[in-house]
């Protein structure tokens, strides 16, 4: 056992470092980062420039085939590139959905001409893509969507509403799942398209979150016209296409980074005086630190197990499915506990060391437990896919969509 690169990996890592050193600035500490904020056009511009540079050098999507600008490389090289890139002060996060989910779906369903038209601009950051799946009445149950697409000659007319769309307001294109037949059971009546987000009838409104941020949007479609040539997959087979997209999403979900963690909690505990001395000497505090450390290490090391499989060219086991189940409540609970250590001052947003950071964890954790699969859905997935337990009873399986009870 070791954490070392194979010779091939080491050579690649060296190459990447050399390139990054030549093209970007190294971070002075690992908390430093460009924050991907929806409302900063300057940052988007910089991100596009960086993406172009990266794509030109062949680092943007290493695993993609060469014809699409990739290197046909093993996923471990992609991981190594990302590990190294994380040490530099470069703006990230704007293209993950497009390149991680939308374009792979395009690759599965679009025509060669379309791929020729869209892949390269996406890879080089010229055009940004978003994914339009969730709806107000279709969260965990994505197939419950209601946005309608109705045939009109060679076109389709889209009406409805999407929600939780990241980056919708700066995106150029999107893939959208619609209901084209409400008279069949819900998974059967769906069809997927891609569309120009500047099409008439598309309206984007930001959603303000409990945290105060606005990283997501609502997108309203009013008589939006899409040519049938932008259909992805067959009519009525949209669910199959959506699964392609979502499978790619699952691979993309990782740990949130940059937030406060054990180190800061220990520092806080060292500096906080409780009745009987420094909080770090309190066995209750120590017990919590130990529990969270074991979780933090456990997740990091679990990731190493996954990377080992990738490095050996194997398919990783299901172990990475535990990450968000552990990380999200840890974030929420550690935030709350750290605030408790500060006493009444734990409510103050300023003037108290670490307060704002741990408050952000406490609030953000509540959202992280929901986004990208709730705690409950993820436990279902582990139980079903890892342990082979039966799926929930589906009462809506054979019933036409328009006969179902509505929320």
């Amino acid at each position, binding site marked *: 056992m070791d954490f070392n690169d194979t010779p091939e990996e080491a050579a690649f890592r060296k190459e990447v470092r050399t390139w990054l050193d030549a093209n970007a600035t190294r971070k002075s500490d690992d908390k430093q980062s460009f924050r991907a904020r929806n409302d900063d056009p300057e940052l988007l511009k910089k991100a596009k420039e960086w993406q172009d540079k990266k794509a030109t050098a062949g680092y943007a999507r290493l695993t993609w085939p060469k014809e699409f600008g990739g290197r046909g490389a093993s996923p471990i090289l992609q991981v190594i590139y990302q590990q190294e890139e994380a040490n530099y002060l470069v703006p990230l996060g704007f293209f993950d959905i497009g390149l991680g989910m939308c374009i792979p779906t395009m690759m599965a369903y679009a025509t060669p001409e379309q791929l020729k038209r869209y892949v390269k601009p996406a890879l080089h950051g010229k055009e940004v893509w978003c994914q339009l799946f*969730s709806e107000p009445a279709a969260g*965990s149950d994505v197939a419950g969507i209601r946005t309608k697409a109705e045939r009109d000659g060679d076109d389709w007319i889209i009406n409805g509403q999407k929600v939780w769309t990241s980056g919708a307001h700066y995106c150029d294109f999107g893939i959208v799942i619609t209901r084209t037949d409400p008279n069949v059971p*819900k998974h059967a009546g769906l069809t997927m398209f891609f569309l120009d987000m500047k099409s008439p009838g598309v309206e984007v409104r930001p959603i303000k979150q*409990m945290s105060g941020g606005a990283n997501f949007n609502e997108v309203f479609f009013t008589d939006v016209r899409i040519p049938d040539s932008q259909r992805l997959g067959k009519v009525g087979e949209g669910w199959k296409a959506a699964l392609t997209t979502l499978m790619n999403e699952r691979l993309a979900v990782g740990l949130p980074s940059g937030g406060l963690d054990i180190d800061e909690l220990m520092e806080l505990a060292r500096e906080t005086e409780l009745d009987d001395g420094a909080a770090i000497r309190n066995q209750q505090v120590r017990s919590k630190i130990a529990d969270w450390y074991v979780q933090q290490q456990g997740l990091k090391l679990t990731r190493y197990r996954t990377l080992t499989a990738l490095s050996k060219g194997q398919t990783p086991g299901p172990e990475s499915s535990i990450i968000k189940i552990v990380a999200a409540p840890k974030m929420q609970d550690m935030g709350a506990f750290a605030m*408790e250590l500060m006493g*009444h001052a734990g409510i103050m947003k300023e*003037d108290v060391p670490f307060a704002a950071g741990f408050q952000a964890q406490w609030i953000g954790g509540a959202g992280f437990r929901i*986004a990208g699969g709730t*705690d409950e859905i993820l436990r279902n997935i582990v139980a079903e896919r890892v342990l082979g337990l039966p799926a*929930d009873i589906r009462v809506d399986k054979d019933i036409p969509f328009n006969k179902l009870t509505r929320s």
Partner: protein
Amino acid sequence: MNFDFSDDQKLLKEQVRKFLADKCPTKVVRRVLDGNETHAEDVWKGLVDLGVPALGIPEEYGGMGLSPLEVCVAAEEIGRAAAPVPFDSSVVLATEALKLAGSDAQKKKWLPELASGKAIGTMAIAEGAQPPKPRNIRTTFGGGRLNGRKLPVTDGEAATFAIVLANTGGSGDRAVSLVLVDLTQKAVAKKRIETIDPARKHAELTFSDASAELLGGEGEGWRLLERLYDAAAVYFAFAQVGGAEAAMWMARDYALQRQAFGRAIGSYQAIKHKLADCYVKLELARSNAYYGAMMLTEDGADLPLAAAAARIAATDAYDFAAKENIQTHGGIGFTWEADTQFHYRRSRLMALSLGGPMAWKDKLVTRLEQKNAA
């Protein structure tokens, strides 16, 4: 066996509840959260008219002379509505402090004003980052003058007077005293501070040779604060129980209405059992809070223990209900538009403002040891 509130008390509870349901729906909480008001003055005025601040104040000082039980039922309803009014600060802490330690003159001066709503009181204990202890209070009082800086102070802007924990030069636990200070004087500067619960405004208070007077004996501050916090823990527990119950039913109502995979999410055991756990914690909290109320009313020897138990159980119930209410709502529950955030924010504020559960658990065991030794 009569371990319940009386019919009259239940009637009062119903009155306060109806008033708040009518005049303090969640859009009022949102108005204060999003706005600049120090508190919902309209709601507060209505509560004053109902006599809420007067309930526990003796008749000789212009109050209604009712027992702690009446204040408890009001607290539960205030908590249920997450009402943005100076109840915890003024009706609980300032009023109880005056009743506990005030001289007759001080009571005569302030209690009638509290009862009539002319004055709003608060307490100013913390001084930023470190949890307050007798040895780390830097605000000083001497020669009738108060100097120092207190933050966060709940309702610090709205309050007309504050009871301040200040160093008066003694040693050990006797280093500190409670001091009563009029906040309308020029020597007091108020500055609003941002907190996790903007529906309850907080301030930083700076005293520069402010005129003030002792409340209770010199060097008695810490001892008085402990007694005061025991009483407050009981009232807070009722407010937390009310909040926990509101969050639980909010989650339950949503779970009944929201469909996933063709049926209400409330039909899935993950949600059912989560909400059953909310109920279990709520009932443990309610029962412990009742006993706290009973001990408070009869000034029972078990008060310190009962208050700690009520505080721990209620904090746990409210924390859990508030966070799982968001979780039950899913994505919509994490938006700024959602009403879920009010209880999430309030639950943490209430958990921290009298000291967190860890400190109370330690206190509880100390008291249990003392009881067993006696």
